[in-house]
């Protein structure tokens, strides 16, 4: 072949060498996940009609509420699923209420309360097939407001790809995305169940109490369909859960348990604060004792993993009765003499707590395969939330749980 002559080829290669660019190149692509701010006008949000939609698959369920034979399952920031749970071994997905910005709910009589960004909504659910919005209380969760113009700021989980080498500098706050992310996530998704121990809305004596990170908001709901905002009460930072018992509100924060006297429902007053080390800590209560789990986790480092039994006979002076080592307790539920603890990846435990000094010796069952985050002891079943979705157990025999069903979710909660 003439064209393959060595001299010509040599010439060609020399030309290649001469005309080639001769310094190195680096192209970097940065892909990262972050919470992007989304700005919304409340006037737009309020203008949308909330029309009940057909059943949707559960994606990433948050709080669960038991109402009669129905389960209300919150899809954080999206709305509420309604399921018929007459037969816990075969729950039926009925419909979906689209409520933007919704993270919590509570039911009072025939009225469902749900937050819609800064507003509180009241729905008439007396006919489950014809749910209707009956009242909107405006501007109550106003910590979401960015400024006074009616614009709110929310965050959306977003993935960004950029070739800008300075993204870390430009978006200084992005560097703490793990933090902001888990904080948002904690606020949005980790509040499960009023029946559950991680609730943030609670009802007591014709009043609705809603806690966010630092404030408790009190609503008068004596006329269920007509909730009225009473006042906000400052609680201090790190509030996580609220649990009502008799006329007392037990509020779990990440460094202690606040006890509020709610005998004057419109104006709860602080009785005492039981302080412990920084940790995530849901709380449940019976006549004499409060049960608190402390957990080491993302949003609550430094924590220990234990179950504390606190003597609350003197509400002004709660004292630690005993603490028990746990593996990684997330949520807990009390049903009479029996205490159920979700141990995250480690499983699900049940205890007989009639002797609070020997709870560890009265462990009934440790289901190591049932990874779980939170639970609700319901009237017909024990509802357990975990990576398998929303599972229900027959717990009529507390020492032998029997799995009835699991509702599949497409984006289950990660257990850790």
């Amino acid at each position, binding site marked *: 072949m003439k064209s*393959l002559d*060595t*001299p010509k*080829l*040599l010439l060609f*290669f*020399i030309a*290649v*060498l001469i005309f*080639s*660019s*001769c*310094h*190195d*190149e*680096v*192209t*970097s*692509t*940065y*892909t*990262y*996940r972050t919470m992007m701010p989304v700005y919304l006008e409340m006037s737009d949000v309020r203008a949308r009609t909330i029309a009940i939609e057909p059943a949707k698959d559960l994606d*990433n369920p948050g709080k669960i509420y038991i109402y009669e034979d129905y389960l209300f399952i919150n899809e954080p920031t999206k709305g509420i699923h309604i399921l018929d749970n007459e037969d816990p071994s075969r729950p039926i997905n009925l419909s979906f209420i689209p409520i933007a910005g919704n993270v919590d709910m509570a039911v009072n009589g025939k009225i469902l309360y749900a937050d819609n960004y800064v507003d509180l909504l009241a729905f008439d659910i007396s006919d489950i097939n014809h749910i209707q919005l009956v009242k909107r209380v405006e501007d109550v969760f106003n910590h979401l407001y960015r400024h006074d113009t009616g614009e709110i700021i929310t965050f959306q*989980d977003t*993935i960004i*790809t950029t070739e800008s080498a300075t993204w870390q500098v430009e978006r200084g706050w992005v560097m703490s*995305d*793990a933090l902001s*992310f*888990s904080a948002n*996530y904690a606020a949005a*998704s980790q509040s499960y169940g009023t029946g559950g121990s991680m609730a943030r809305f609670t009802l007591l004596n014709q009043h609705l109490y809603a806690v966010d990170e630092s404030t408790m908001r009190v609503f008068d709901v004596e006329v269920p369909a007509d909730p009225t905002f009473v006042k906000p009460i400052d609680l201090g930072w790190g509030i996580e859960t609220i649990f009502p018992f008799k006329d007392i509100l037990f509020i779990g924060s990440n460094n202690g348990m606040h006890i509020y006297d709610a005998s004057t429902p419109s104006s709860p007053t602080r009785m005492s604060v039981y302080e412990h080390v920084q940790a995530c800590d849901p709380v449940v209560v019976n006549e004499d004792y409060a049960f608190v789990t402390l957990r080491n*986790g*993302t949003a609550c480092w430094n924590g220990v993993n234990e179950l504390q039994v606190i003597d609350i006979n003197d509400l002004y002076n709660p004292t630690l009765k005993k603490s028990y080592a746990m593996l990684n307790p997330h949520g807990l539920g009390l049903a009479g003499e029996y205490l159920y603890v979700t141990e995250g990846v480690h499983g699900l435990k049940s205890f007989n707590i009639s002797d609070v000094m020997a709870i560890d010796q009265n462990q009934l069952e440790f289901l190591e395969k049932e990874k779980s985050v939170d639970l609700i002891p319901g009237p017909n079943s024990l509802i357990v939330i975990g990576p398998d979705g929303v599972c229900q157990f027959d717990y009529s025999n507390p020492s032998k749980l029997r799995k009835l069903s699991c509702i599949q979710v497409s*984006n289950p*909660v*990660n*257990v*850790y």
Partner: protein
Amino acid sequence: MSLKTTILLSCALFFYLNSIAQDKAYFNQTELGFLYGKGSEQWDGSKENRIDVSFITFHGVRITKNHVIGFSTGLDQYNQLSIIPLALGWRGFLGKTGKPNVFAGLDIGGGSALLEKKEENEWSKSWYEGGYLVSPSFGASFPAKKGKSALTLSFAYKRQQISQFVGTFLPPGSPSIPTDLLPPGFSTFTENDFLFRSFVFRAGLLF
């Protein structure tokens, strides 16, 4: 041509060449030298030079009197990075037998980052992946007085792509969001694609 194809072809060729190694047709050129390149632009616009070791061994078979095809492998160092090149190659000679010759060559294949360790800890993971390699060359050979061997001096241009991946894991407990942009389980992912352009000066032997 993918890296895998190159490896497969090279292996096949290696065994084939081994079988004819005793034959007259077998050709070997082994050289040691250095790679010279200008680094990518720094933040202030300056470029740092890099000079590193380069080793190549080419095994081939004479298809005509002046043409050899085969494969080459060796070791190229780019700063801290050690890359094993693996390429199919050609050598063409000009000159009379027993006299100094000039030659040209072309190697096309890939570089493997096999020697680079994957680093992984609780929070992050990083690793390298090899990429395409093209290297045209020319040089001169000076035959020994006895035997078939010759001393070689060669000059080459080498274009080598290497990718580095650095990812940080999602904090435990985060919900996953389905996406094609991020590999599952990561919250950040950085891909650095390096294109090394080097001049190579080598000396060695052929027979």
